[in-house]
């Protein structure tokens, strides 16, 4: 290979510059304006990757995002499966080939090609079943051979952004149609966004030798884009893929930063009044033997590499086509110094204009000929052609190193289809084109199956005007449409999907997934003949290119095989994304530490200073315990528990949900919300309250305090606060619509500190509590207001520990002072763990543990609360559940025979020792703790028919955590400490 691949002039690369890059450790030179693909071609690199199944050598096949072959990894430990055609070349770029071992040139797995007949489509469904348990071993190997690139090992170091946008008109595609549309809409005054996946505006105008208004296509595009960028109402985003078209005109964009810049990938959600899809069309190949060899390329790509990058993809080219557009490839290659051996056209005639152009260049045209096969190794050596109608055996050989193929163009209807738009098969262009729109969409240019340059410019202007008008802008009549010339752009084709009798094992339909024409035929034979079955059975169109160049050929072969028109076969569904989008960009910045917000109590800093160990409770961080230096968790929790039982402890309960309910109908409202009777709750008194769901299960527990006749203060569990709010709000609005009540969430306004223990009244006195009656005389379940350490406070004489206790509610911002004063006067902090131990000793239920969403108040021993006859939430549900209840799980206490033996939350209960099997469990330990007060382990449990088993023995089984022997325990009432509640009283 001594002849230069790069032309002496032409194209949009900067021949004065030089860029150095690496591919598989070898260093190469490219030019500014190159893509990785064009630079590799310019350096004569023909093999760039290996195929998925047979590990066949593959070269660059296309010029755009439809690329099935040229997938590389960019950078060390970098992004795998990157299409070389979409990577702008930058200095120092490192790219690596994929899916080969040990090297691209010598790949051990290439031997799989020899086994191809055995590895026919779906072979894995028919084998690897013997011996029976061996699948795992087979699978291990299969997984290693499958896959494409190597996944990165390190955590992704990049940061990503999310952004939101709104516009009047979103134009997708920056080719002639898109530019024309954007200009008309922008001139009408609409806010226009113009996006294109390529780094260069202009689309095919950069890739063809077209003229518009006597300028070259690329010059015209550059001038148009410069004009548009100068307008304040236009935003142009290049290297930005509109990858998803969702409900109500939401378009998702993935924007790459400029090559080599330190910018971030950004995901846009843009809500557009109107969307113009000018997404163009994708050329499709033809199915014949050897159509995957390096050197076989889409005809449009072959001329695009010459025209845009000044790169000859080969020196001796054959063009094979069923349409006029590939004639331009012959012309452009010839004019760039490539020897064009022949144009092979399966049709009887081409457009006279393009035919004349070819004749002038003295290129032979083989009409009514087809290509039988391509042959070669790491590069193409020759192709064989024969008359289309002639006998299968007779063919002649054409020596070449580039085969440019065009079997027509498929409109890129992906976004249209995603938006819910219909599509239909068009005979003239042999392609699937859009039919009706579902959303506020306009289509322009090749995406509609109208391919001429003049058509595209015209269509674009019309769509731009229509979109602007619909978005409310009065529109000038479109400017005089530009005069343009591009020979042979009518777009009509003679359908040719696969060359008959050429469907050997190497005639590929899907290059990436190695699906051959034979595979499609075999799938039909086996009855996998609906498009979805074909796709799923053969994996056709399931690769990273999602079948952009292969689906239609597969469909057509299927239709032919079934003897039905293509139109009747249907298509597979077009799903987002249009092209694959980096996960990091989809996720955006809110990952890992920023995954969800952290809620912190107003006293958080105080806890942190005390070196508390924190636990997650929903979004909240709460102190679990406060270890002293060198103290274990168990020791700390025991110490804190004893403090409350014998001295004075304080705990931050600011995270509880807090609500004020007020209004003339507040009392009636409360009566409906809670299961217990509240009408006789006097002002200044509190009560423990249970809220049910309509199905009768406990929803939440907390306290209800009547502040005055028409005003209540509620607390709820931390974890359910948001749901309780929603339920109260819903119930008020929908079920009690006539009531005059307001529900206000006051969680954030109040901090709350529970002061508990026999010495609590003394500590409070010392701190200075000004209230009436005096705090130590405040009756149990009474409420008052006053000041604590000079701070205005609401004081509730309620207890969740079983000791004399008082909850102090103070304004959140003044809570630190109160907490510190309490500490200064001898109160010791305790955390969630000690609180849990205290409530288990008392048999108080925990939300999540006992109130697990499947238990009713009757199950948990609150039957007395439930007798109310007035309608309340959960009343009927409760009746239904208990009307014919069987052996429901009921709350009990458990004491192990061995007081030193621990029972763990989540252990199961058995009636007899060692029992196993379905039906053996009769309940489970719902909460458990070591009680320092009692000097033994205690547990609460949900036990089938539990209350009637009081005094019985059950067995506690905890095999998961390694307990060998089931522990015997006796069932008791669920209260282990001060059952009469004498310690609660003043």
């Amino acid at each position: 290979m001594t002849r230069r691949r790069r032309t002496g002039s032409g194209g949009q690369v900067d021949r004065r510059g030089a860029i150095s890059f690496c591919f598989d450790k070898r260093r190469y030179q490219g030019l500014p304006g190159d893509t990785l693909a064009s630079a590799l071609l310019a350096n004569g690199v023909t093999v760039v990757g290996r195929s998925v199944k047979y590990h066949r050598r593959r070269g660059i096949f296309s010029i755009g995002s439809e690329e099935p072959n040229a997938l590389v990894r960019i950078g060390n430990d970098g992004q795998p499966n990157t299409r070389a055609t979409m990577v702008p070349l930058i200095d120092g770029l490192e790219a690596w080939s994929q899916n080969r071992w040990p090297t691209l040139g010598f790949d051990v797995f290439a031997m799989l090609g020899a086994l191809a007949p055995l590895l026919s489509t779906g072979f894995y469904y028919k084998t690897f079943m013997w011996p029976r348990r061996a699948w795992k071993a087979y699978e291990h190997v299969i997984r290693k051979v499958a896959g494409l690139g190597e996944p990165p090992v390190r955590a992704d170091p990049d940061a990503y952004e999310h952004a939101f946008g709104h516009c009047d008109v979103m134009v997708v595609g920056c080719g002639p149609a898109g530019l024309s549309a954007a200009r008309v809409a922008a001139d009408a005054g609409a806010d226009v966004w113009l996006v294109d996946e390529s780094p260069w505006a202009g689309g095919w105008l950069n890739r063809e030798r077209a003229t518009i208004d006597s300028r070259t296509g690329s010059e015209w595009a550059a001038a148009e884009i410069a004009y548009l960028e100068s307008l304040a109402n236009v935003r142009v985003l290049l290297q930005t893929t509109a990858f998803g078209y969702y409900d109500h005109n939401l378009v998702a964009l993935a924007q790459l930063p400029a090559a080599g810049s330190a910018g971030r990938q950004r995901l846009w959600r843009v809500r557009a009044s109107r969307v113009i899809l000018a997404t163009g069309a994708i050329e499709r190949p033809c199915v014949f033997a050897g159509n995957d060899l390096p050197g076989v390329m889409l005809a449009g790509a072959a001329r695009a590499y010459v025209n845009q990058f000044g790169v000859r993809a080969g020196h001796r080219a054959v063009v094979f086509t069923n349409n006029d557009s590939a004639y331009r490839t012959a012309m452009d290659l010839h004019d760039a110094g490539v020897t064009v051996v022949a144009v092979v056209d399966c049709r009887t005639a081409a457009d006279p204009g393009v035919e004349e152009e070819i004749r002038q260049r003295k290129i032979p045209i083989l009409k009514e000929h087809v290509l039988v096969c391509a042959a070669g190794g790491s590069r193409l050596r020759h192709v064989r052609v024969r008359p289309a109608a002639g006998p299968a055996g007779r063919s002649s050989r054409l020596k070449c190193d580039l085969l440019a193929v065009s079997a027509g163009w498929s409109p890129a209807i992906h976004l249209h289809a995603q938006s819910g738009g219909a599509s239909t098969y068009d005979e003239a262009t042999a392609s699937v084109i859009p039919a009706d729109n579902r959303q506020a969409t306009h289509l322009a240019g090749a995406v509609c199956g109208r391919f001429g340059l003049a058509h595209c410019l015209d269509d674009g202007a019309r769509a731009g005007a229509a979109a602007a008008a619909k978005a409310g802008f009065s529109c000038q009549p479109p400017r005089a449409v530009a005069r343009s010339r591009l020979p042979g752009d009518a777009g009509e084709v003679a359908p040719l999907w696969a060359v008959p009798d050429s469907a050997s094992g190497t005639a590929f339909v899907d290059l990436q997934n190695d699906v051959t024409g034979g595979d499609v035929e075999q799938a039909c034979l086996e009855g996998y003949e609906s498009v979805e079955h074909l796709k799923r059975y053969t994996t056709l169109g399931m690769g990273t290119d999602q079948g952009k160049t292969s689906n239609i050929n597969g469909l057509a072969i299927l239709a032919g095989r079934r003897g039905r028109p293509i139109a009747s076969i249907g298509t597979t569904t077009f799903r987002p994304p249009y092209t694959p989008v980096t996960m990091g960009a989809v996720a955006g910045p809110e990952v890992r530490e920023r995954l969800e917000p952290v809620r912190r109590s107003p006293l958080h800093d105080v806890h942190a200073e005390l070196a508390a160990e924190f636990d997650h409770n929903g979004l909240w961080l709460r102190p679990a315990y406060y270890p002293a230096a060198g103290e274990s968790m168990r020791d700390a929790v025991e110490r804190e528990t004893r403090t409350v039982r014998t001295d004075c402890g304080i705990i931050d309960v600011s995270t509880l949900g807090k609500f004020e309910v007020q209004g003339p109908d507040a009392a009636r409202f409360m009566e409906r919300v809670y299961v217990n009777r509240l009408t006789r709750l006097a002002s200044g008194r509190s009560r423990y309250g249970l809220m049910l769901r309509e199905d009768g299960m406990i929803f939440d527990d907390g306290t209800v305090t009547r502040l005055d006749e028409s005003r209540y203060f509620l607390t709820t569990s931390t974890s359910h606060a948001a749901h309780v709010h929603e339920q109260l709000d819903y119930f008020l609005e929908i079920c009690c619509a006539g009531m005059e009540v307001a529900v206000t969430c006051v969680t954030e306004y109040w901090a709350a500190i529970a002061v508990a223990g026999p010495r609590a009244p003394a500590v409070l006195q010392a701190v200075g509590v000004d209230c009436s009656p005096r705090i130590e005389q405040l009756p149990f379940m009474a409420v008052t207001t006053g000041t604590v350490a000079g701070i205005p406070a609401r004081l509730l004489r309620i207890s969740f520990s079983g000791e004399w206790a008082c909850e102090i509610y103070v304004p959140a911002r003044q809570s630190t002072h109160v907490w510190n004063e309490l500490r200064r006067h001898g109160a010791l902090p305790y955390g969630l763990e000690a609180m849990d131990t205290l409530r288990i000793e008392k048999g108080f239920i925990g939300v999540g543990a006992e109130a697990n969403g499947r238990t009713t108040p009757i199950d948990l021993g609150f039957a007395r609360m439930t007798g109310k006859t007035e309608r309340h939430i959960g009343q009927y549900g409760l009746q239904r559940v208990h009307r014919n209840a069987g052996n429901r799980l009921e709350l009990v206490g458990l004491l192990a025979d061995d007081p030193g033996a621990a029972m763990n939350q989540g252990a199961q209960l058995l009636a007899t020792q060692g029992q196993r099997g379905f039906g053996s469990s009769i309940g489970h330990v719902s909460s458990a703790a070591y009680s320092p007060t009692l000097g033994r382990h205690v547990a609460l449990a949900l036990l089938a028919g539990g209350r009637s088993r009081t005094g019985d023995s059950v067995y506690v089984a905890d095999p998961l955590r390694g307990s060998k022997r089931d522990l015997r325990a006796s069932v008791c009432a669920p209260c282990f400490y001060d059952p009469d509640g004498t310690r609660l009283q003043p």
Partner: protein
Amino acid sequence: MHLIECPWCGPRAQVEFTYHCDSEGLPRDWESEHETELHERMLNRTNAIGFHVELWNHAGGCGSWLLIDRHNRTHDIRSVAYACNGRSGGK
């Protein structure tokens, strides 16, 4: 993602709203309904493909409870109204 025309806030993205239930799940008169009525509306649904009036809450916005007439396959929205005769509108 739907665009929902909140009568109080204007057009807003669906992520600001929470769906609560189909209007079949709402009580006609909560005060006077019977057990069978409650269970029928709590449990059973027509669940047909087509337009349904649904109760949504603009939880990430004004907090209004809204009845949205929405097609459950195309996601077209025919109307959005306050669930309670404008009562929510004052929030």
